[in-house]
């Protein structure tokens, strides 16, 4: 698998606070990379820098050759749906397609509605949709222009279990189609289940990068095959990569 996203020696400071320190990793095509860690670990900051909503203090983020019609390499779906509640599903997608400079916005709208399974709700105002469907539209807008990398900041945090399941199926489908997905989550089970790789952040440092199985093995004895316990034990030990 070729590298879709390369993060090198990334650092971010807010005054005295070091939110990220020397974070480096690669994300590959068709790969889903889960970013986990306790509150304040730097997950959202990392995702924001990858998405381009914040600039890094040090280091770099690079992708492959410009992809998508507008040359935007990373699609982005923030934690809170960044959409207009007074516009319909189709109007939201069409507006951002036009702003992205997509050649045929109407066709893109059709494609995204089909992809998200929201064709029947196309004319519904976004404010009338459930949290799960809003998040699907949020992801769909992030996918406009077919970016090779998709950054998702806690995409399932506000959803019920059924909505979460549907959303992850949708995202898995995107990854299977070739998109590299980097997502942050508080739900350790999701990281284990959907992440091909897990990156563990703690106080801005990356302390683990590997498969969920590798994290289980690296955890101290006593985790007894439980991924969440393994992660907690791993963080308590203060392991370094």
């Amino acid at each position, binding site marked *: 698998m070729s590298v879709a996203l390369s993060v090198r020696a990334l650092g971010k400071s807010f005054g005295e606070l070091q939110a990220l320190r020397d974070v480096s990793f690669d994300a590959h095509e068709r790969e889903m990379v889960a970013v986990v860690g306790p509150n304040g670990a730097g997950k959202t900051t990392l995702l924001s820098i990858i998405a381009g*909503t*914040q600039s890094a203090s040090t280091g770099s983020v690079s992708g492959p050759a410009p992809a998508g019609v507008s040359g935007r390499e990373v699609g982005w779906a*923030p934690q809170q749906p*960044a959409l*207009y509640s*007074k*516009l319909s599903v189709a109007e939201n997608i069409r507006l951002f397609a036009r*702003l992205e400079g997509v050649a045929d916005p109407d066709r893109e709208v059709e494609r995204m509605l089909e992809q998200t399974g929201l064709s029947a709700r196309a004319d519904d105002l976004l404010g009338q949709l459930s949290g799960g469907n809003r998040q699907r539209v949020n992801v769909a807008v992030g996918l406009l222009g077919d970016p090779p990398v998709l950054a998702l900041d806690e995409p399932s945090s506000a959803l019920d279990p059924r909505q979460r399941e549907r959303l992850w199926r949708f995202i898995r489908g995107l990854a299977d189609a070739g998109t590299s997905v980097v997502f942050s989550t508080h739900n350790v089970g999701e990281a284990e289940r959907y992440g091909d790789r897990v990156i563990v952040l703690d106080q801005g440092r990356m302390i683990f990068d590997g498969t969920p199985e590798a994290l289980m093995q690296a955890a101290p004895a006593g985790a007894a095959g439980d991924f969440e316990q393994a992660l907690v034990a791993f963080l308590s030990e203060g392991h370094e990569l």
Partner: protein
Amino acid sequence: MRWLLRKDLLILRRSRLLVALLVIYPVAIALLIGLAISRSPSKPRVAIVDETPPGQTVQIGSERVEVSQYAQRLFSQVQAVSVRNRAQALAKVRSGAVLAAVVIPPDVAAKLSSGVRQAQLEIIYNGDALQQSLVQSQLGAALAQANLGFSERIQGAAVGVIDTLLKGGSLGVLGAPPNLIGLGQIPSKLHGIIARQPPGQDRATLETVASFAEFAAQNLTVSKNVLSTVGQPIQVRSTLLHGRRTPLNTFAVVVAVSVSLMFVCVLLAAGGVALEREEHVLARLLRGQPPLVSREGLLAEKGALAAGCAFAVAFAMLAGVSAFVPLDWSRVGMWLLALAFGALAFGALGVAIGAAAREVRAASLLAFLLSLPLAFLALVPSGSVSVGLYDTIRAISFVFPFKATLQALDAAVNGAAPSLGGSLAHLAVLTLAFGVLARIGLRRAA
């Protein structure tokens, strides 16, 4: 940027209640302010008890003045409610049917005619402090006017008497001898007699009397002028330092339109920018290089949309008001210029507020809390507060667009000073300054 504009228009179309409030509320506030400025206080309801016998007159010199004429002058300043007696008047005042009662006693004519005793009216008040103040000032002004009228009549009668004393004739006063010799004729008649008198004590006495009569006649002529000066010691001569005088009602129109322009524009622009934050869309729009929409483009779009809407509302208001207040339509080009520059400056102020706030409600509240005092500060007249405070108010008004818009619109509609060009330049500078502030405020948006 046009897609963003289309989106905002679509959202506005779907927010009918918001749009209705945005138009109705400022227009209502503007009309209230306009009414408060242009209308004088309404006449207070006052009960009048006239206890004088019908047709009673006051003798002033040779003239008779009817008491009812005096009362009519007084009644014209208030909304008079006639009652029969003092008891009825008191009841009406107590019940709140009238704010005050004026009792004209039966001996008023006798006292006025005596020339040595002052006539008195009784005034009975009621109501709160504000109502008392209103009725006291109105009745005070009415009494002053009526007294002035009386004083003029007395002065006229006195001048007539002095003329008769000087030139001779009949005084028309009961008991006075007819065909009196005039004081002015006495010196010449005496000089004729003196010429025929031999030198001696009698001739010297006559010469002294003639000299006194001459002196008295000259000074009595001067006393006529003195009387007219006493009747109206101070006359007012008005001089306007610069510009055209703006009639109060057209100035009220200008104030009302400026207030509407400000509210619609500032609230819409501030709300428009804050909405992007509230919907979490701002970061999506501004991310990457180049961003989907530049920060400058976003601010310009919001400011221009708000300015356009406010411009349309304000012009419609101006055109509508012209059906009731005569406005010079040949100056319409200048109106449009003033409205456009004012709207852009308010739009810039609005986007600066919107960039500082994180949500629509906070932005609207901030816009409202800032706008209303600015409007009132701009209307504080010089001399009504201390010099230091007025200078502070002037400085505050200078750095916000309301006063400049008011001046531009007053110049455009009424040809008032300062000139339209100066106010437009001021507004252009303010637009730029608030645009820069808004851009700084949006830097922290993510």
